[in-house]
């Protein structure tokens, strides 16, 4: 018998906000334990939550990017479970009226195009972190992550292979990064995924027994887990190796196996109820339109436009539209200098090289597009040489600056003083008659030696073409 796998995903994404969802504590990753805490996110009695507007903004943005319907009245609910990483003994989340519902995400795999339906996107708070201490046999609680804002993106069970899951997650990551909803870094836990999986005979319209694997945080682990679970389900159905039960399982990537988790008798009984402390959030037209108008072009739309409007090749357009930061810088630079080809070159070769050297990703580019455009103008109009322009670019990686002013202050302007160039050339020729003779005798290399000496003397502030021509003229005269 042939089987098909039915997979639905719950993807948690940490939102790129400065502060937490219901209090003003920092939402930044990686602080000393319990440094980003206050009575509200520690669940002290009497504290009231106040919704961070930016969380709703980003929730709506995610919804719009994934073609969802936005609920113009959205409410928060309490999900009860008792565990020390949750100081209130409930998580504030959305159950009855989530911010976005009924979306659609297009993916592409080796089998072609497919649309994955999104059931809903809801806003919620993260939980804290527990460290188990063997020495004292206690658990230690860190509330820094408590109340850090998340969205959970719940798909319909429309995925049917590990390949489709990877394509779906990569698409989500690309869209959410583009819209600056989240940096979606799986390795830092800002994107994690619960996999719901069942198996059924091909063509059947009945769903099989479903198991869930929680908190998966790498694409390769997800692929392995899906392959293992699929095989386990099929084996159970075909050979009766075990009885499948609906349960939550933990994926152990080192052992390459999934294990049933304990305490399942109480799982799922979350007793959701409306949070009486948070009144409904009503998104009026001004708010809604503001977010709608701030949405970025989809990456593939931008790519097509870069090719048709700016005449870029597909390869270049692909690299640029792989990151929102590159796009922003590119568009800023083109607006300033009007030279798309040059702007693309500077970004794809020079900026990418510098990013690699600093072990940064394209998304971490901070170079100001307008400033890059000004730099390009200075090179194309012959004010500064390419080599010195690269030095200025390095400085621009440190902080934004005006390239013309910086070049002036650091003596990087090309010399148009032919008198000075002439003087330097004459000195070089007088100092090295052997090189002159060698060049006349047919040794091309000898010219490079003289050229280098002159360039050094001029501190690089000379158009190489001008210097070369003047140098050859002078040698021929000698």
């Amino acid at each position, binding site marked *: 018998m042939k089987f098909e796998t039915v997979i639905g995903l719950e993807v948690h994404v940490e939102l790129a906000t400065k502060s937490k969802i219901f209090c003003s504590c920092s939402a930044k990753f990686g602080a000393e*334990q319990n440094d980003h805490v206050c009575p509200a996110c520690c669940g002290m009695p009497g504290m009231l939550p106040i919704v961070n507007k930016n969380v709703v903004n980003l929730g709506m943005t995610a919804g719009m990017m994934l073609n969802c319907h936005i609920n113009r009245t959205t409410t928060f609910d309490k999900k009860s479970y008792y565990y020390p990483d949750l100081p209130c003994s409930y998580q504030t989340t959305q159950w*009855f009226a989530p911010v976005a519902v009924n979306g659609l995400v297009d993916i592409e795999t080796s089998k072609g195009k497919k649309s994955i339906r999104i059931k809903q996107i809801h806003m919620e708070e993260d939980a804290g972190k527990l460290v188990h*201490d063997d020495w004292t046999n206690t658990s230690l*609680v860190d509330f820094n992550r408590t109340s850090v804002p998340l969205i959970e993106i719940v798909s319909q069970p429309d995925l049917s292979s590990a390949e489709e899951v990877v394509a779906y997650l990569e698409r989500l990551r690309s869209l959410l990064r583009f819209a600056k909803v989240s940096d979606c870094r799986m390795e830092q836990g800002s994107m994690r995924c619960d996999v719901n999986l069942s198996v059924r005979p091909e063509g059947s319209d009945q769903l099989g027994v479903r198991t869930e694997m929680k908190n998966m945080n790498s694409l390769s682990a997800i692929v392995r887990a899906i392959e293992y679970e699929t095989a386990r389900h099929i084996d159970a159905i075909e050979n009766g190796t075990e009885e499948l039960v609906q349960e939550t399982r933990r994926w152990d990537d080192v052992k390459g196996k999934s294990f049933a988790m304990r305490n399942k008798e109480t799982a799922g009984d979350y007793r959701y109820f409306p949070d009486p402390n948070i009144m409904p959030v009503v998104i009026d037209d001004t708010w809604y339109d503001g977010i709608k108008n701030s949405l970025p072009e989809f990456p593939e739309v931008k790519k097509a436009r870069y090719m048709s409007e700016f005449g870029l090749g597909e390869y270049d357009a692909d690299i640029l539209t792989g990151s929102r930061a590159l796009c922003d810088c590119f568009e800023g630079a083109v607006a300033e200098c009007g030279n798309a080809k040059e702007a693309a070159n500077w970004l794809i070769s020079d900026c990418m090289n510098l990013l690699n050297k600093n072990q940064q990703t394209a998304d971490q580019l901070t170079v100001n597009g307008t400033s890059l455009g000004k730099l390009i103008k200075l090179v194309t109009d012959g004010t500064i040489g390419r080599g010195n322009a690269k030095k200025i670019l390095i400085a621009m990686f440190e902080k934004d600056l005006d390239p013309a002013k910086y070049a002036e202050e650091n003596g990087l302007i090309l010399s148009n003083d032919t008198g000075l160039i002439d003087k330097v050339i004459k000195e070089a020729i007088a100092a090295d008659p052997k090189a002159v003779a060698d060049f006349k005798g047919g040794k091309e290399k000898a010219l490079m030696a003289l050229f280098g000496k002159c360039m050094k003397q001029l501190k690089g502030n000379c158009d190489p073409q001008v210097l070369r021509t003047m140098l050859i003229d002078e040698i021929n005269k000698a």
Partner: protein
Amino acid sequence: MDQTTLQSLEKLNQLRLTDAEKEAVLAFFARQDKEMAVLDAIDTERVERMVHVMPILTVVREDVEKKLFTRDELQKGAPETMDGYWQVPRLVE
């Protein structure tokens, strides 16, 4: 409310009730059940679900980060702490 429901609620809330407390809780819920039965008798077929009684909306705040408390202040009332962590009985994973 019966013994089984009460037991599962005890478990969910990590509570341990004495027999006398259980008696009291069961008696309380028996009274509540009677009152709920009165409400249940009302036809609410076409009534929209109401969550919040007051016609007011939530106030939202701008996304500004502020540090208003120190860790030491917050842990003053904690029964046990260790290296800046709150310390609780060990949980078996």
